[in-house]
């Protein structure tokens, strides 16, 4: 206790800086924890959270007894894996390239890539529609110009893994590349100087210095993202496929399924149950991933 107090005294300024963040987390993430109880209740407005009837795990049932349980779980996990791996690889590559081109041009690229990050999925959905519309979409016009038959994109699920992955990448790459780029800027220039004196070329410096130095950052971000493994990106999977029933086999994730099942009944207990389930599995995955990383290399783990 005394030691901790000392630590606190020593880093007082830093703790003060983190105070708003801690407060934010406390209010947004920890205070509502008590509300988890709703997941086990038949919630009524007039009885309130604590007065409502306790019904155990009944709220969870609908997610697991459904025919689609397997499909939506598989889709959620596989898509998230895809987003994670493709996203990490691509944004690392972009960050390395950004580092190589210095000056104004690099800032221009950053801005251009960052822009989609601010678009809502609804807007992106319309952009995608402009590409994929059966009659007047760019994609079909291009196909026809090449003498190929047009494709009914919204009716054929085969293409969708190859559509959703790039769309996700397009929207997210600006942000994650920026994170890695900032990581690169934080690397001590002395390493590069020493390497240059030893005659290393740029590729060697990128592969032997930049990448290894970024590894802890990469692994931490990967560990954190495993926590979202069971959360489908609702906006992406609802708006980009235009909620077309024919595509569910390839696009349906837990979040879109839950939306469909509960939109009309609007049961708070059942939606809280899904959130709780996803959070607990996510926590388990984060712990497991962190444990694995710590076994491999303790320096790269989150804690």
């Amino acid at each position, binding site marked *: 206790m005394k030691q901790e107090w000392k630590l606190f005294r020593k880093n007082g300024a830093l703790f003060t800086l983190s105070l708003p963040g801690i407060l934010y987390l406390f209010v*947004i993430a920890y205070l509502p924890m008590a509300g988890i109880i709703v997941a086990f209740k038949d919630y009524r*407005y007039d009885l309130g959270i604590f007065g409502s009837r306790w019904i155990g795990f009944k709220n969870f049932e609908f997610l697991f007894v459904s025919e689609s349980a397997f499909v939506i779980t598989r889709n959620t996990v596989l898509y998230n894996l895809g987003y994670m791996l493709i996203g990490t690889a691509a944004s690392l590559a972009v960050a390395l390239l950004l580092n190589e081109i210095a000056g104004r041009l690099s800032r221009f690229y950053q801005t251009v890539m960052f822009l989609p990050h601010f678009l809502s999925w609804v807007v992106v959905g319309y952009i995608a529609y402009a590409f994929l519309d059966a009659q007047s979409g760019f994609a079909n016009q291009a196909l026809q110009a090449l003498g190929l038959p047009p494709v009914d994109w919204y009716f054929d699920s085969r293409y969708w893994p190859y559509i959703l992955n790039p769309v996700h990448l397009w929207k997210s790459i600006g942000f994650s590349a920026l994170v890695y780029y900032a990581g690169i800027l934080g690397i001590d220039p002395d390493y590069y100087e020493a390497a240059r004196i030893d005659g290393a070329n740029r590729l060697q410096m990128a592969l032997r210095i930049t990448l290894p130095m970024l590894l802890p950052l990469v692994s931490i971000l990967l560990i954190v993202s495993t926590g979202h493994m069971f959360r489908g990106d609702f906006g992406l999977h609802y708006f980009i496929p235009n909620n077309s029933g*024919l595509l569910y086999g390839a696009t349906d994730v837990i979040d879109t399924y839950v939306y*469909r099942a509960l939109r009309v009944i609007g*049961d708070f207990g059942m939606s*809280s149950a899904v959130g709780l389930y996803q959070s607990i599995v996510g926590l388990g995955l984060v712990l497991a991933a962190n444990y694995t990383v710590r076994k491999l290399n303790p320096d790269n783990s989150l804690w």
Partner: protein
Amino acid sequence: MNRTQRTRIAAAVALCATMAVSACGSNNSNGASNAPSASQPSDSASPSAAAATSSSSPSASPALEEVTLNWYYPQPSAQADQAAIEEAFNKITLEKLNAKVNLHPIDFGDYEQKMNTIFAAGASDVDLVWTSNWSFVYSKNAEKGAFLSLGGLLDQYGKDIKASMPDFVWTDVTLDGNIYAVPSYQVAAKRAGLVVQKRFADKYNLDVSSIKKLADFEPFFEELKKNEPDIVPFAINNNFMISELYGIVQSGSYAYYKDDPSLKLFTIYESPEYKDHIELDRRWYEKGYLNKDAATIKDRATLIGTGNAAASIDVTMKPGGEAEAKKQFGGNDVIFVPLTEAEFTGVQPTMNAVSRTSANPDRAMMLLNLINTDSELYNLISFGIEGKHYTKIGDNTIRLIEGSGYSPLTNWVFGNIMNGFLLEGRPADTFEQTKALNESAKVRATFGFNPLLDDVKTEVAGVKAVEEQYIRMLAVGVVAPDKVLPEFISKLKKAGSDKILAEEQKQLDEWLKTSKK
């Protein structure tokens, strides 16, 4: 259930949690302080309120202390002149009720979700809230305890509304012996049929009298397809089965044959009639009568608005509705081709309730009473300000000013439509026609039966998800019924449709026993 929404719900839950904790302590004092304040004005208020509405003498209002009311209701889209309307609205309510009313319009698409969230968060500032049987559902929310029972309030402050509507209106909104909402009286009967552009009906000699069912339109659509390459013969975006045409009464997830005295329920998607219908859909899709993008567009209003759709479906066909339909069809004249007899649908499609959390329920009821009886107030919120948003062209008929900053066209949200103006083009006797239709319409055998499906909610959720996946694509013909329909039915069964049906049948049998007496 996207992430922001979940955070919002989480935040709401947090609020609830903290409030519940603090409410435990303050509830008593709150109730104590509320009780006198609620009863105190009521002694003095009831005569003054009556005076305010009948003679509207300004001297009567000072007896009421000034309060603020919050009214949540839906609108089609944001209105540029909302602030001006609110100001004018408040001028009247301050004078007559000494109440300031904050209007909270919410877009239709978001209404249910937002109200659910607001009520989950405790609905602390809601006094009046719009509800219906199709969005922010009345029976469900009343059952969850969202609304105040209006019995006493209606007798005390709502005498005028109570007298202004026929008795069946009040029977229809009674749940378990309590009235929780004041309906906005409008057409309470529906006839389903097709809306057809007059220019095409005339050009291709559509003989309306010979048309009895959907398939009778085929020769007409065929002509259109052949001769009008730019026109979509029939614009749809979802299921358009008119079950009455097949002698079936459908309500939610169950259905029964109209002439079956035992009222044996079945799932409509398993019936041969449904199969017939989607085979027709498929045929029409393949022949090109339907819009190709029917499976992916969110609504058909855009397509219809271009004037390039020759016909579409309408499930209400209210008297004089051609004037509005003309607007929707890009200004082209239309005719209604009703295919069914008028059926009584009740008044639940649009109502306003008092929130259980309202701090001034008596004043909220006075406002409801006022808006249902005071034409000035009602017309203001329904149509805007004269000269700015509409011009009067007859005693009770108005013409909307094109492109003005206020035209929600939802007079049925706010109150009794017979209290307000008629839109240009509607026959002068529209309200008489409406009343006559309401009173002559046939009442279905199960009218007033609302099954409670809490015990099978797991199955309900599963079935809903399956329905959302299949109904639309079968309805718009993009898939072959012989392959997809069996798959749909088997998934419904696996999700538990039979269990829901059994529960509904059980409740229906009990309901029949008690309601027949």
